[in-house]
């Protein structure tokens, strides 16, 4: 086991990880269950988290490599009582069905909005293109992001 220091959702943490452990497994082991495993080979996006505000497939990153870095997971952007506008809007738009891919999708969209708060539909599709979904046909998910953009423009 290796001890690493890492900031997760703005909290400093000390994690014990195996040298070959994938970040997704370490995060889930430490209770961040919102990060999902869909393919374990970087092809589906269910495990997307932000590494220093950039979206990454956490199944492609070894946990020891995030020493002294900043991680943001779905738990870090909103809660049941205080959801992020993205989370709220995707529910309102009907963009969540089984919900398994949704955290990863939201993290990709969240990363996009950090650098581009007024994205076009096309830019949203590109930014979330690594997040596969079999339930929704993406229609209402994209609508949800657009809705959130509008809400956030309102100064929220």
């Amino acid at each position, binding site marked *: 086991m290796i001890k690493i220091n890492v900031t997760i959702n703005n909290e400093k943490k000390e994690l014990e990880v195996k040298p070959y452990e994938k970040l997704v497994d370490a995060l889930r082991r430490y209770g961040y*269950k919102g990060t999902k*495993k869909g*393919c374990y080979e970087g092809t589906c996006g269910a495990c997307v988290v932000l590494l220093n505000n950039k979206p990454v497939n956490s199944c492609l990153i070894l946990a020891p490599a995030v020493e002294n870095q900043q991680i943001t997971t779905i738990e870090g952007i909103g809660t049941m009582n205080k*959801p992020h506008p993205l989370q709220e809007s995707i*529910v309102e738009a009907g963009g969540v069905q*089984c*919900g*398994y891919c949704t955290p990863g999708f939201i993290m990709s969209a969240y990363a996009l909005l950090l650098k581009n708060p007024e994205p076009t539909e096309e830019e949203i599709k590109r930014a979330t293109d690594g997040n596969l979904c079999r339930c929704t046909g*993406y229609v209402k998910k994209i609508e949800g992001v657009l809705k959130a953009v509008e809400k956030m423009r309102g100064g929220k």
Partner: protein
Amino acid sequence: MSKNKFNVVNKSIPKVDGLSLVTGQPLFTDDIDIDGLLYAKILWSPYPHAIIKNIDTSKAEKVPGVKAILTYKDVPRIAFTTAGQGYPEPSPYDTFVLDKKVRFVGDRVAAVAATSLEVAEEALELIKVEYEQLEPVLDMMTAQEKGKPIIHDEKEARMILPLHYDKKKNLAAHAEMSDGDVEEALKNSEFIFDNEYEAHYAQHCPMEPHICITYFDAYNRLIIRSSTQVPFHVRRIVGMALNIPVKKIRVIKPRIGGGFGCKQEVLIEDICSALTLKTGKPVKLEYMRKEEFISSRTRHPQHIRLRTGINKDGQLTAIDMNIVMNNGAYGAHALTVICNSASKVLPLFNKVKNIKFYGDTVYTNLPVGGAYRGYGATQAYNAMGQQIDIMCRTIGMDIIKFYKMQHIKEGEGSPVFQKMGEGKEGVEMKIGACGLSKCIDIGVKEFRWYEKVNKKRKEGNWHYGVGMVCLMQGSSIPEIDMGAAFIKMNDDGSFNLLLGATDIGTGSDTIFAQMAAEVLTVKPQDIIVYSSDTDMTPFDVGAYASSTTYLSGGAVIKAAEKVKEQILEVAAQMLKTEIGDLELKNASVFSKSKKKKVTLKDVAYYSLYEKNQHQIAAVASHITHKSPPPFSAHFVEVAVDIETGLVKVVEYLNVTDCGTAINPKLAEGQCEGAVLNGISYALTEEYIFDSQGRMLNPSFNNYKIFSPADAPKIKTILVPTYEDTGPFGAKSISEIGINGPLPAIANAIYDAMGVRLKKGPYSPEKVYMALNNKK
């Protein structure tokens, strides 16, 4: 209940579990931590057809951390079916937990449970297996021929129903029917068409692969926490396969990360349970994506020969549908999928007086077919939807006019309903609500069909064309499936609604809350839904056959009505009046004569704490005597790049009649998801095999499903009708949408290019070759 005047139903309320899902709450099978958990891995067969001559686990057992290794020698030899259907299942009992024969690349050979995945994987590599390879059967069209190897030569394999099953011919199921005289009618038809079509292998690709965790609770009962569509069937089938009494098993269904049919299979719960039985320890078995492709379940490929007769005036005279279906190595859903190819397709054309259907389902040494959204209808609509386009173009008939003239209408029946059941005779049925003509009209206008069809529009290398198709499905399996619901009242006038019905992401928990709230005149938030747990919730067959809304919804309404009666009884005591004087509205009971009211909370307190104390609660069960079809008209515009053969969907419109949409937004979501899955199936999804039946592309890298940037504009229009036998007028919605893209896109490619592709996927190479062949 008056039509179309609802308070809660037919409103797009947010999904009851929506916020929990988007904030990443630990809701799924794998989201709990269990002390002492063991990790399971399966050793898969590298050969399509072989006998295990010798299997040596001694080295593997010595790896520190290995807690159990199972081979066929360690498990009971009981034949069962993995198809999660009601009992008696119309699928052959041809599967064992482990067997000494392997029947496809990816079949189970052995299972390991160890303290970590790494140890389990290391152990797999140390299991020494000596195989005697047998000749494989890899072609479904010749699988029945004399001299072909017999895939199920074991004595135990059998159908438990009196159905045609001939394992010596690799025949897993057979169905046929006829009405009228097809040959005579064809002879007298002005035009005859005879074409062959194929529907190909595909996988469901739920984002959450199969996973289950099994353990013993403090009472020594086996707990199966599983990502399943059919918890009650899991309990029964695992009990049977491992010879455990049902009372010793509890199946818990948490949130499910998508199913689409592949989790209607009792696929992994048996072996995971066997490992827990052997070790006494909690065990987790989770499929990797590769395993999901190879060793899970697939869409059954079908070869369809379709002969039809038609006269100049557009009157269809005869349909003769002949199907060979490939079930792969085991016979899951072998009979019922092929029956649905008839029963969900042929009745749409009920003006035809002469119909013949003949279907053989064969075993091959290839991946195993299972339930997949559309369930046989997807395959058969590819044939029927293209044949109609071909016929209309040949006889110079407007396809819109054809469908409106030929499709089944309100009050009409079809001999097919009665003749094609699921393992037994079907149920005679007259169509209640049918909005298909209206769907077609709305679609033609919205899509601007006549401005686009036959226009051969071009922009550079891109040639544009449009296609359409009309569809129906069903709603539940009549007189076979049952759903039950239990409702109890709480102190504050809220209610618990416990259901066996299985929300797998479809939103059924939400629409059931809406239904119960409608009857009990409360807010949907006052209905606390729990599904499903075989210890806690009443029985339900589970999420399949487009049954949940229509079937289980019926149970919810009945249970709510019973609870309402009990509420009125208590209120009558409280208000010292007769029940007939009372009305339940806005979560209160009003006395018309006394101009007084009591709230539901008052009623709850009175019944629980004050007088004649009792629990207001009711359970109700529901079966159906009909399977009312939803209807849909699909329209698609494609662009074909003549340089590369690439086909792009420009726009896709589905106009759908699902009766009353209990939650329109969720209903639209069902259509959109199904349509995109269908588009992806039509254009890119494909199993590529080597000469030994090994799938070569078991990864999202090489098996392409559509991503956000690939997705075309998809529009859904719901056309409200009212199905009198459905809950608040509802029919099903979840499956129908997937049936359209394969034929509609083929028709659109023809409209653009004049080439006909009868076998998907319409990949660039196939389209390019077809274009070249035409030149």
